């Protein structure tokens, strides 16, 4: 290892720094893997962030990556960077449990497009990360593989459904992890674990080979420690995929190049309606402080009341329920006891929602997006609001399977601020903007127009230039 990296833990490098260090010979891929593994061995017994591990396979990949550097071979943008992903991205011949007992031995025969695209840039995978069963909860509870714990304060939720992705990135066990986001499942664990996560525009990233939950609202995206890292991964995985005909044909911008420059004159709307309903004081204070940071960078902060939120919230509440219930119908008939109660219990009402309600919710989506965009984006370029409006609850407080009646309401409230953006299909990034009195991170959502990922990444990166929340290490690593 070269002297410039000798005084810091290699696992503390960002993804971009780690990739650059391998490319320039300052370190090796094997050293990166060993650094991540040291944190895994230190923290994972308390976090339960992984489902399966393949250290030998990863070591083999690392050695091959290092040999390629020595030989002057092709060096991709993620060359030699070890990763682990939410255990629902298919790799031919490898386990993909989807966090479930029903698929605990499932071995797919094909590989997800996003996995192939990252591998083509030199990334490799050392394991599958814990997740909510079939990506269906906002907390991180899991009946089969057991609950994932928050690296900042173990009894608290990690957010879900990409629970292991949030915990593993925060605990420096991986430089990045894919999550999936149907109602907030990238942004919630990003917020709760103090990392950065982006849900791209609906249709921006191929979903081929990613376990489905809701065909209308599923999204694939990364969790990392910085906005720049998200930009790098998004630039690799975004773009049309012939194997996913729902993926957009829009050209993919250079997201990393778009981070340069400032945000002076950018109009940012601080949402006053809906997103602050029932918000806790520490969360509101963190939001206001974040707005000041952006204003100091030259952004123009406008307080804005959002239109149509009642309709958006109502329609969103049924689409994923109906689609999940439909996908899981056979298992719900024959094996419903195999699910956690909070999973089968949530899907069950989906069978009672009338088809005209579902069709209405889908058919209004386009017109409501147009009306929302006309009303909002004629006045502002982006929106900010809390990712989770309250201080984080504990796993116990949101445990439907073992808690008293009514627990489901605390459970569902976690994703109140994330779901509307899935209905609208907008790109949204969540960054850490402070900590609550329990030492748990607070998330800031930054949303933009469809295909406006460059803008929200730029705002997030500018925010991270002036704050250090994203660099802090969780106590589980102490």
């Amino acid at each position, binding site marked *: 290892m070269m002297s410039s990296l000798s005084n810091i833990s290699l696992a503390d490098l960002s993804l971009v720094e780690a990739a650059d260090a391998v490319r320039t010979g300052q370190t090796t891929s094997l050293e990166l893997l060993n650094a991540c593994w040291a944190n895994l061995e230190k923290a994972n017994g308390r976090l339960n962030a992984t489902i399966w591990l393949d250290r030998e396979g990863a070591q083999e990949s690392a050695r091959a990556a290092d040999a390629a550097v020595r030989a002057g071979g092709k060096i991709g943008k993620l060359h030699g960077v070890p990763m682990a992903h939410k255990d629902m991205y298919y790799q031919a011949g490898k386990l993909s449990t989807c966090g479930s007992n029903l698929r605990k031995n499932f071995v797919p025969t094909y590989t997800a497009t996003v996995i192939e695209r990252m591998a083509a840039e030199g990334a490799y995978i050392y394991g599958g990360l814990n997740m909510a069963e079939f990506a269906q909860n906002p907390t991180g509870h899991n009946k089969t593989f057991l609950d994932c714990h928050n690296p900042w304060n173990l009894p608290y939720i990690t957010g879900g459904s990409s629970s292991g992705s949030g915990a593993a990135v925060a605990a420096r066990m991986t430089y990045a992890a894919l999550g999936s986001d149907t109602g907030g499942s990238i942004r919630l664990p990003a917020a709760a674990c103090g990392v950065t996560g982006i849900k791209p525009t609906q249709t921006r990233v191929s979903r081929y080979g990613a376990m489905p939950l809701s065909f209308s609202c599923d999204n694939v995206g990364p969790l990392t420690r910085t906005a720049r890292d998200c930009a790098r991964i998004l630039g690799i995985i975004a773009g049309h995929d012939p194997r996913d005909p729902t993926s957009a044909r*829009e050209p993919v911008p250079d997201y990393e190049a778009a981070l340069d420059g400032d945000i002076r004159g950018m109009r940012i709307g601080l949402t006053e309606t809906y997103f602050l309903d029932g918000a806790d004081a520490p969360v509101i204070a963190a939001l206001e402080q974040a707005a000041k940071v952006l204003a100091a960078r030259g952004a123009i902060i406008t307080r804005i009341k959002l239109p149509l939120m009642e309709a958006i919230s109502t329609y969103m509440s049924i689409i994923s329920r109906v689609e999940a219930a439909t996908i899981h119908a056979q298992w719900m008939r024959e094996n419903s006891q195999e699910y956690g*109660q909070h999973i089968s219990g949530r899907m069950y*009402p989906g*069978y009672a929602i009338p088809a005209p309600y579902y069709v209405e919710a889908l058919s209004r989506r*386009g017109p409501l997006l147009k009306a929302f965009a006309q009303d909002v984006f004629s006045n502002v370029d982006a929106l900010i609001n809390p990712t989770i409006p309250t201080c984080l609850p504990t796993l116990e407080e949101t445990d439907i399977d073992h808690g008293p009646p009514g627990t*489901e309401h605390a459970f569902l409230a976690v994703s109140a601020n994330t779901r509307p953006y899935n209905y609208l299909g907008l790109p949204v990034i969540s960054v850490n903007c402070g900590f609550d009195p329990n030492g748990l991170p607070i998330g800031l959502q930054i949303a933009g127009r469809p295909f406006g990922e460059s803008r929200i990444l730029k705002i997030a990166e500018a925010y991270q230039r002036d704050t250090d929340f994203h660099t802090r290490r969780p106590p589980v690593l102490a």
Partner: protein
Amino acid sequence: MEDFSKATEAMIATWHGVQPPNDPGRRLVADLVHTIRAFEKLRGTIQFEDEPASFESALLATKEGA
């Protein structure tokens, strides 16, 4: 409320062959009355539509730089 829940559970069993999996499922079926009320509030906001609406085209029509 009890009548609503029983009728809804019977309808699910008849149309889908799915039985109530547990108490949270039963409670969340009862909560569907809130969904019905929410949809009631939206009545009148939708008119007869002559042309199909496309969410994907709306994404493009409202995109950054459009």
